[in-house]
């Protein structure tokens, strides 16, 4: 069970980094627009 928890956490962290990067792009785009 704890192994699955670590694996799910690893997936979540990696996709959080990618979503964070996409969010940063969105904010930069909006700032330029304004």
């Amino acid at each position: 069970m704890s192994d699955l928890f670590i694996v799910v956490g690893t997936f979540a962290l990696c996709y959080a980094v990618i979503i964070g990067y996409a969010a940063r792009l969105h904010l930069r785009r909006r700032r330029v627009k304004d």
Partner: protein
Amino acid sequence: MSRTRMLLGTAALAVGIGLWFAFASPVDRLQGEFSRIVNIHAPFLWVAFLAFGVTALASIMWLVKKTPRWDRLGEASAELGVVFTVTGLFTGMVWGQAVWGRAWDWGDARLATTAVMLFVYLGYLALRRATPDPEMRARRSAILGTVAVVQVPLVYFSVYMFRTLHQTPSIRPDGASMPDEMVIALLVNFVAITYVYVALLFARLDVARAEERVTVDADLAGDAVKPPRLTEVEDV
């Protein structure tokens, strides 16, 4: 809905499908749940290779054509390559700690060459930030982007050149060393994560184009648009 938003939305859907396959596929008898990490580890690093390849191609095109769009493409793809190399290394470290008993080993050829590749592309991004003149920035980064790509085959073939800790690929032209369900899950994630790269590349290029337009407009306007210094304004 804009093209970029549509791409990002469908990329999120592709990731969802990839996650379903990753967690529905059977696990390796020895590695247990940790074998699921390979479903994102290998695609992340494949996308990093692809991204650095695109940077090299864009760099060569800039050296030939000298048009800003190739410079923008090179930068955008290198930035994404760095993001995917970091996530790829992190997933490999978690898997390595569980299966090998160690997260990192500088003596391993694949790990060491991947780390060097990451540092070189971080250097590429640093070089861009350290060069204010657009023409000079494009020229310097095009040269580095063209030369740095030699690391991609070096990282890929390092497991054949030096027999250290990291294993050779599990999927080869002569067949795969894992059951079909696991191969399908891995291939679905390869497609999904490649699609994420394409969607993010378009989003990054949109930002670069918009930022460049603002910079050009400001340059054209010159001093006329500079805000007044409030300390110089006398009270009325």
